[in-house]
């Protein structure tokens, strides 16, 4: 920690200003401000590519308590534009901790603000909907000049930014997965994947080929994978028109497809359903989703600002599989006549509960794999 704490300001689109202390990298940033209600797992949140283009507020007030355990990273780096906390722990304590969160933010060039009333901020976002905002250490910025800039800001092109650039191959045993002989091949379409999606597949004895978001469906199909996984990712799904076209081809290929989060939205769009931006999204580790077949409810990890419009789904094309118990939004779809299943939430967890990790077994069943 630096000796001199520098003041920082969070300026929202509606003109609200929060004053706090600067944390992380010292730079000015404009971003979409969202909040996450997970009480643990700040590093997983920071390294989840779905947060690209957003500034994340943690509603839990004490962040950084257990430091940084690099092996918990969900991708190669931190993605959010900024990080907003009430209190950044000065004394991380955990047997695995290798670094402080402050240093991690600095290293990843992520600016942030601490010492603000994150609950007040969250209430604002809840009441007015997700807003854009600026974090700056410049006291002299003129609000009048900033506000139009904030209103203008749009999150675009983030999928390309987070996706891998070339094909990557993984075998069981890689990235701390269980070592076992592989008997299946999975193609993963990376629109912003978290490492744990890949790890969950490796753990189940799959060789994994990860394709960048610029993939061509035919190339994937020609590789004869046993199954295809379309991952989570950031941004407005409707913007990804080219990817949607390719996904449509994958869905029609007869190869079993499982999709998570952004993948789920893209699959729905490929089947002429619509998505819309939610008022303030679902971001946290406590969202109940109900399996409509069994009536069982799972607590899930979620991170999405857009959702598939349940009324736009052609009942002959897909039927709801999961719904959100709180707001009844669609949380999963089963496509009719195609081996395609998709979920809005994160069965791979990290951060969050592992209750729905058994959906990977469901996927294995779809591809006829072991377990």
């Amino acid at each position, binding site marked *: 920690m630096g000796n001199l704490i520098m003041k920082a300001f969070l300026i929202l689109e509606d003109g609200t200003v929060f004053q706090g202390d600067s944390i992380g990298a010292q730079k000015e940033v404009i971003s979409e401000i969202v909040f996450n209600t997970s009480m643990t797992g700040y590093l997983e949140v920071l390294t989840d590519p779905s947060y690209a283009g957003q500034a994340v507020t943690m509603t839990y007030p004490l962040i950084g308590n257990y430091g940084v355990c690099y092996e918990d990273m969900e991708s190669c780096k931190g993605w959010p534009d900024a990080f907003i906390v009430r209190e950044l722990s000065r004394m991380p304590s955990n047997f695995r901790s290798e670094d402080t969160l402050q240093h991690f933010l600095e290293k990843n060039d992520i600016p942030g603000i601490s010492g603000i009333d994150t*609950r007040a901020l969250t209430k604002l976002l809840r009441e007015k909907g997700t807003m854009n905002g600026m974090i700056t250490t410049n006291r002299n910025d003129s609000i009048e000049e900033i506000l139009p800039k904030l209103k203008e800001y749009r999150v675009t092109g983030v999928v390309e930014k987070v996706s891998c650039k070339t094909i990557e191959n993984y075998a069981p045993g890689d990235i701390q997965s269980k070592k076992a002989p592989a008997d299946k091949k999975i193609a993963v379409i990376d629109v912003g994947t978290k490492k744990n999606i890949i790890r969950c597949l490796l753990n189940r004895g799959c060789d994994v080929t990860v394709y960048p978001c610029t993939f061509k469906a035919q190339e994937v199909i020609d590789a004869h994978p046993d199954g295809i996984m379309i991952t989570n990712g950031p941004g407005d799904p409707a913007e990804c028109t080219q990817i949607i076209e390719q996904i449509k081809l994958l869905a029609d290929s007869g190869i079993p497809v499982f999709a998570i989060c952004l993948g789920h939205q893209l699959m729905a769009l490929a089947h002429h359903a619509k998505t819309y931006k939610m008022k303030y999204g679902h971001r946290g580790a*406590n969202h109940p989703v109900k399996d409509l077949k069994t009536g069982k409810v799972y607590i899930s990890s979620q991170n999405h600002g857009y959702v598939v419009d349940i009324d736009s789904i052609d009942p002959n094309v897909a039927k709801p599989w999961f719904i959100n118990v709180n707001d009844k939004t669609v949380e999963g779809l089963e496509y009719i006549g195609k081996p395609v299943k998709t979920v809005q939430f994160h069965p791979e967890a990290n951060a969050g509960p592992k209750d729905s990790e058994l959906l990977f077994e469901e996927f294995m069943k779809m591809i006829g794999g072991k377990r």
Partner: protein
Amino acid sequence: MPKLEGIKRVLVIGSGPIIIGQAAEFDYAGTQACRSLKEEGMEVILVNSNPATIMTDKEIADKVYIEPLTVEVLQKIIEKEKPDSLLPNMGGQAGLNLGMELAESGFLEEHGVKLLGTTAETIRNAEGRQEFKDMMERIGEPCAASELVENIEDGVAFAEKIGYPVVLRPAYTLGGSGGGIAHNREEIEEILANGLRLSRVGQVLVERCIAGWKEIEYEVMRDSNGTCITVCNMENLDPVGVHTGDSIVVAPSQTLSDKEYQMLRTSALRIIDELKITGGCNVQFALHPTSFEYIVIEVNPRVSRSSALASKATGYPIAKVSAKIALGYTLDEIPNAVTGKTYASFEPALDYVVVKIPRLPFDKFIKAKRTLTTQMKATGEVMSICTNFEGALMKALRSLEQHVDCLNRDEYIGWTDEEVTEQLHVIDDRRIFIIAEAIRRGIAYNVIHEITMIDIWFIDKISILVEMEQKLQAADELTPELLREAKRLEFPDAVIAGFVGKEEKDIRDMRYQLGITAAFKMVDTCAAEFASETPYYYSCFDGSNEVAGNTGKKKIMVLGSGPIRIGQGIEFDYCSVHSVWALSQEGYETIIVNNNPETVSTDFDIADKLYFEPLTPEDVENIVRLENPDGAVVQFGGQTAIKLTEALLKMGVPILGTSAENVDAAEDRELFDEILEKCGIPRPSGQTVFTTEEALRAANELGYPVLVRPSYVLGGQGMQIAVSDTDITEYMAVINRYHQEHPILVDKYLMGKEVEIDAVCDGEDILIPGIMEHVERAGIHSGDSISVYPAQSISEQIQKIIVDYTKKLAQSLHVIGLINIQFIVYEEKVYVIEVNPRSSRTVPYISKVTGIPIVDLASKVILGAKIKELGYQPGLAQKSDYLAIKMPVFSFEKLRGAEISLGPEMKSTGECLGIAKSFDEALYKAFLGAGVNLPKHKKMIFTIKDEDKEEAVDIARRFKKIGYDIFATRGTARVLNKNGVLAIPVNRINEEAPTLMDLLLDHQIDLVVDTPTYGDKLRDGFMIRRTAIETGVNCLTSLDTADALLKSLENSAAEELSVVDIATISNGQISEDC
């Protein structure tokens, strides 16, 4: 609806008298469950022997049985009431054990009673040590290496195989009773012997010692559809080794990464799924501090102290939801009452920190061993909520009301660093203060950590508080920034003033000038993700206020009673809650302020607004500034609330009911004497003193024995009978450990019959529901006496005098509301010994047994109603046609080294009631309810002080007559034998074996009657009493109690027990036949 078919009449079992390890949390859970069942249209039949509870109100249940919690009594109630189902998991371990016994014997099945919620098999799998271990092994969840033993040899052999230290846990006991950590053969033998005896099934688990690991708890819920959720997890600041009930606990966990958090969460859910629990469950883990290794310590398949804490910490009503699940609802069908928008199948997200600190009874038992172990010793707890850990800790510390408002204590001045380091090894209630002291002296974090095993994160937080103290001390000038930061960390103004050398008022003024004021935030279960309406608030100094103070309605603030402690228990919560309900009925908005997570009053739907805050003037002022209440009620919250009177008046809040001056007049010796004189009411002569010298002079003038006590205390705190100058010197030293603002009273001690009344007074008329008479002569605290309603040996004439005195006193003191008066009847003359113009311990008891709701009446009287308008005849209510006997219950076995002999200072933790048409039956039931179950071996020990020896002869003769063999110390035996009662003389402890001690340890003794010589603490008597308690032998220290027990034994076989539904009682009469 998915509700189970055929459930209409549900029997709910409560947890019985309050004892250490089983306290108010079960009244909270049971009350919530009953209300939840009634919401579903169920008829609720409630059984609990504890009359001080809210669950035993007729507003809560349809049929109420305040009866001993035994299998026989429950069978009778089931036969009479014919419930179709039984909910056993709301009454703690006691309730669960009973439910189990009824299920296992086949009685429930025979009578067509369904066990709701958790099944008997589940309970067995979770509670039976071996079954549990087998199940854990089957699903691959790790338990500590352990073996269940039924004798000492096997225990020693196993311990020597796995190596010391080992943990010993008796199966089926309360609060870890009889458990402990053994470091060697000697210790294991001692603890095992005790544990085997205390275990209901004679089994003790010998287990690998995991002391020093992190202790983490998960509160989980599961419905019949297999949906599992976590309500909250909690981390104990004190590592494994200290009972979680005695640990400082923080929610949520602070030092676990998501990997560890989820690993344990997954494990907890697997366990409840495997156990097929339907309802709430608590899972305790030990987590290795430097690896992912963990061990499942324990599973409680029921609501618990932890579930009450978790409910209050998150806003998630575990008991309520559990009851709904028991009726067949699934979690996604049960709305979350807090948000109104989400469902119970949702995991609360906290955006604050919760700290719980236990309230330990060492201020009452100054001789008891303060060491904290796996055996619980706390009588209660406080909880606090803040946006940061440091603040939550500071708030919790001052909520304890133990003269401590920060981590800085003078007592370590003069200690060397070595002494401080050495003291770090001692695990007791002062550990957090010694850690602060160690930090103050620059002892390194890792040194502290290696000794205490407390996580560095917590040590650093303590350090942040110490650093603030130092910054304040060093500050040339208190800058706004420093003040703001100190307030963020919840330093009270008075503490800041102390450190910077100013007055509290200066700090307060400076704060208001700078606008540094408390803001209030809502506990909403969801970290503000959803809009919530539930008015459950806490304060912080680093945020904006989100609570609307002005609602347009007239509002009244009710001050709660804080943590449960000996002398101020659950009864004051009963009073607070009833007052809130009555005020609300009258159309007022009600605001409750309290800090006790175990109670009904801190449930979010009792008052219109709940402030979970410390009960100090400054904290209350923060609320007053926001709410501007039209009045405050202090007379129901025990001494905690009364103490706030002056501060509230200064804030401009009118005190409703009896005015502050009159409360003072009752406590102020001179004013009170004037009133007595004016009314012509005698009291034992006495004087007020401050110093030991004055006390000695007073005592000698009055003549021994005298009663010594501080004024303004509850539960006879610090009260003692002195027979000599030595006693006076000793007691005065104890009392003056803390600075006394008020004088100490020295009174002539009259050994007469003690009589007590509670009355409502409207300024003109009084209403006395009944006169209670104590079985024990004056000198034993009223809370520790057996109390009989209606009074049996008081003549009509004396009763009239009592009513007359009550009326005069109530009028002279201008009492509006409740008044409690204790009298002594000595040589047919009535003396007043104590007047408390407020609610008392006996209020729930007398309300229930007379059917006269005096708290409700008092609350309405406070608002201006007259007794006559409320439909009651002034004066003494008609006597009921049956008797109700209140029996005190003690927790001495939990407190190593505590003196058990009864005296003017209260020692009981709870009470139970025996209610019947005849005195003998009521008495028998009262003893039964208190767990005095005689006879077994028909052998007893007498050791009687000289003054009592003559009187003891007859009692001994009667014991002999009902078949008891009597052993006695030499002097006692001589007197007994001389009077023709055969008694076998036994050697004193320091004499040749066999001694009294050997006799006790032989497990052949049912009962010890030991009337202690004053000040025999270091002598045989103390040892005998302790050994009796620790080997589970009943020990009576008053001949009056022995006489009562005898009466009960002499008549116990006479008739079959009856059971009484007290919901049918009104105005002292039972309206239906029972």
